[in-house]
């Protein structure tokens, strides 16, 4: 049964390992995955803890439905206080790790302390071993995983690991599993590195009993049919996420040359169809692969076709790698994108943050704020592919003044570089924005400004806002499971009703993260995909827990609120440019220079934006400063936190 999967507490300083069952009463309040992680973080992280200190708990988990019969239940969640933002650190990845952890008997690992020498954990059918990893230190992410399998003599072991970037405490280092599945945002790999923890390996052969197996099987078939019949998922299954990049670029929604433009020109070589050709040429016609149990199979497999890394195997590139090594630095070569993607995967470094921070440095270089003296003579102009790839390596190994400076993350780097460099940094809460440009889309701008882990599209983005769906369709989606009678607009440039859409999506994504299901299986890119009405059935058939759509909504609200409480405790205030719910001034002051007629000339209206934030706070039950109201905490049963029940 999913419900008998345990939580383990591992102290790397003392070597103590304890495990506890997770009471159903807590499950009903926080479900599992990201939601329960947030509860654990709020309860176990001392207020104001240094993210790199042994006291910062690193939490790795699977969701309530991980490895059960509920479409794609592959997601692994990683949480800690972030060394990049000083606020909530939270990252989510696909692959095969979380199911293996669940078969090994665990849903959550709370890792504290710091090992004297490099170690890795081996979790096997209810047992947890701390093992020496000195032979693994320095290895790339994939080699680390294969070396663990060889050492333990078992090819079925699945590990999540750090690469050299995590070891070198790069503030945006990943936790990774498989070839490219990345817990990429907020520097969770850096926290893992600070604990001298190279990897967590899992191997499980314990049954997970399905409460109502035949019903679960039949419902899963229906669920999968619904998911794979969505056109957006069919396209994902052929071209992968690059198709979104291609479409967004045509329209003019991509941050280009840091934040100077919103469309990359002459990009034929990195259009999704071209990347598909390369994948076909190097890996054959059936080159798509997927995570555990998933029928969307959205990632391509490829070998780098040319250049110094020709022949190297990797998966992707994703939407974000195209931004990181394409539009943001203004590069247009497939070889560069595929090589950059390969490097960050091997180093274990967030592609998004890496590309964004280099693009920022490029703008500073062109503005004369950074000079050849800072770059060690590297010609850091936009569109210089070689300089871009060189900087990726320099950041990972903290080589040179600039490599070392950028490895600390945007805000510390801006403080070190000085002058007005901070003004050019496209970040929220210290985390750089992905490469999308939200100036023409107020809903998306509100999403990145208020996302709990800093500028991010996977926390509350109403992506379907871009489809201009009829109002009736929007109303059907957004007025369930709780009623909503306010305005809703099909127009993506409007500010009307967008706060509610963002609030709804925030709860939707939280629920899906608690369950351990992928966002492509819910109302993210497709308007016809399952959400609150369908999940209670899946939960019941697989676990036997009865929960209504409304209850699930409240759980999501509660989990989002505890993330908010953590952020407030660590210093979030509404208008703080470094730790607040606001955007870089360029969103308000610089209109879009390129793109379709509904994009060009657009920027965010400060007054309307502030009003949207007010509305959003109102829905969430926050006061004008963004702090939870006492009545809200009472309603959500959070008035006694930290309650230290787990």
């Amino acid at each position, binding site marked *: 049964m999913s419900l008998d999967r345990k939580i383990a507490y591992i102290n790397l300083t003392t070597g103590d390992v304890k495990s506890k069952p997770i009471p159903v009463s807590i499950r009903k309040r926080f479900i599992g995955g990201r939601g329960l992680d947030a509860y654990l973080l709020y309860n176990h992280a001392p207020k104001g803890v240094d993210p790199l200190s042994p006291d910062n708990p690193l939490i790795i988990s699977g969701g309530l439905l991980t*490895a*059960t*019969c509920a479409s794609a239940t592959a997601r692994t969640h990683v949480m800690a206080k972030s060394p990049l933002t000083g606020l909530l650190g939270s990252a989510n990845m696909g692959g*095969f790790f979380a199911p293996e952890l669940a*078969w090994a008997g665990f849903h959550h690992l709370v890792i504290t302390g710091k090992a004297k020498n490099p170690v890795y954990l081996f979790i096997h059918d209810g047992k947890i071993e701390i093992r020496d990893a000195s032979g693994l230190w320095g290895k790339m992410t*994939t080699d680390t995983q*294969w070396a663990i399998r060889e050492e333990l003599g078992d*090819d079925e072991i699945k590990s999540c690991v750090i690469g050299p970037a995590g070891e070198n405490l790069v503030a945006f280092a990943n936790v990774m599993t*498989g*070839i490219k599945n990345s817990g990429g945002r907020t520097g969770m790999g850096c926290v893992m590195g600070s604990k001298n923890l190279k990897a967590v390996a899992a191997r499980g*052969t*314990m*049954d*997970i*009993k*399905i409460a109502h*197996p035949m019903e*679960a*099987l039949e419902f*899963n*078939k229906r669920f*999968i049919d619904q998911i*794979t019949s969505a056109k957006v998922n069919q396209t994902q299954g052929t071209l992968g996420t690059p198709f979104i990049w291609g479409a967004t670029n045509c329209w003019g929604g991509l941050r280009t040359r840091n934040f100077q433009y919103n469309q990359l020109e002459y990009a034929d070589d990195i259009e999704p169809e071209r990347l598909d050709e390369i994948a076909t040429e190097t*890996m*054959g*016609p*059936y*080159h*798509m*692969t*997927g*995570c*555990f*149990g*998933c*029928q969307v*199979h959205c990632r391509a*497999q490829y070998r780098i076709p040319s250049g110094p890394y020709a022949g190297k*195997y990797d*998966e992707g590139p994703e939407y974000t790698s195209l931004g990181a090594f394409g539009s943001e630095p203004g590069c247009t070569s497939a070889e560069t994108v595929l090589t950059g993607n390969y490097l960050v995967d091997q180093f274990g470094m967030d592609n998004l943050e890496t590309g964004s921070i280099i693009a920022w440095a490029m703008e500073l270089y062109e503005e004369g704020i950074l000079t050849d003296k800072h770059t060690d003579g590297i010609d850091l102009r936009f569109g210089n592919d070689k300089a871009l790839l060189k900087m990726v390596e320099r950041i990972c190994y903290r080589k040179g003044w600039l490599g070392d400076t950028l490895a600390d993350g945007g805000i510390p780097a801006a403080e070190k570089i000085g002058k007005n460099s901070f003004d050019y940094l496209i970040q929220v809460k210290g985390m750089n924005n992905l490469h999308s440009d939200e100036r023409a889309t107020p809903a998306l701008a509100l999403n990145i400004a208020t996302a709990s882990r800093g500028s991010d599209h996977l926390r509350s983005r109403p992506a379907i806002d871009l489809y201009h769906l009829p109002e009736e369709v929007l109303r059907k989606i957004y007025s369930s499971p709780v009623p909503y009678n306010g305005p809703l607009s099909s127009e993506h440039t409007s500010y009307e009703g967008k706060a509610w859409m963002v609030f709804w999506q925030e709860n939707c994504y939280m629920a899906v993260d608690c369950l351990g299901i992928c966002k492509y299986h819910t109302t993210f890119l497709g308007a016809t995909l399952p959400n609150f009405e369908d999940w209670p059935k899946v939960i019941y058939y697989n676990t036997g827990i009865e929960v209504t759509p409304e209850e699930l909504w409240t759980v999501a609200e509660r989990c989002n609120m505890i993330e908010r409480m953590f952020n407030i405790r660590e210093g979030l205030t509404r208008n703080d440019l470094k730790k607040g719910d606001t955007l870089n001034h360029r969103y308000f002051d610089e209109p879009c220079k390129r793109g379709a007629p509904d994009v060009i000339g657009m920027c965010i209206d400060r007054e309307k934006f502030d009003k949207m934030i007010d509305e959003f706070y109102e829905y969430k039950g926050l006061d004008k400063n963004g702090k939870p109201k006492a009545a809200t905490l009472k309603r959500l049963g959070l008035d006694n936190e930290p309650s230290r029940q787990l």
Partner: protein
Amino acid sequence: METLGKVLMIDYEKCTGCRLCELVCTVKHDGISNPMRSRIRVMKWESEGLYIPMSCQQCQDAPCMKACPVKAISMNACLGRVEVDYDVCIGCRTCVSVCPFGAMSFNTVDRKVFKCDLCDGDPQCVRFCEVKALTYVDAGDVSLIKKKTAAHRISVAGKEAVSAYAAL
């Protein structure tokens, strides 16, 4: 009977490596999720992007059937499958040793051998495999599909040869 002569065909090139087949196999047969107890397993070479599902081939002259010391294994011609009679089976695992495909496994929970039974004619792995790496087809058609694929390769090669010749 409709299933007469049908076989499970594996086209490994199409496999995405998601292992849903393993999951639905154990849910259907045992009401659990646990790949160790699945009758079908996807063997993976992740560093090369190679995934190959392995299951029972339902051999006509099955080594497991031959080697079984108590004659617990027989061919069910109607369903086109090799099956184990658990009333007779002594759990000696000789069949596990002799199977050239590793398709006979031993379940450490029930302490019994187990193998693919084609879900009595409605294999769930096939039903859930959207990319059709697994199909359940008439045995006679198996080579026809392969013939057509090979023929296509020849036709493409032929065209390329002609254009190469023309370019000379």
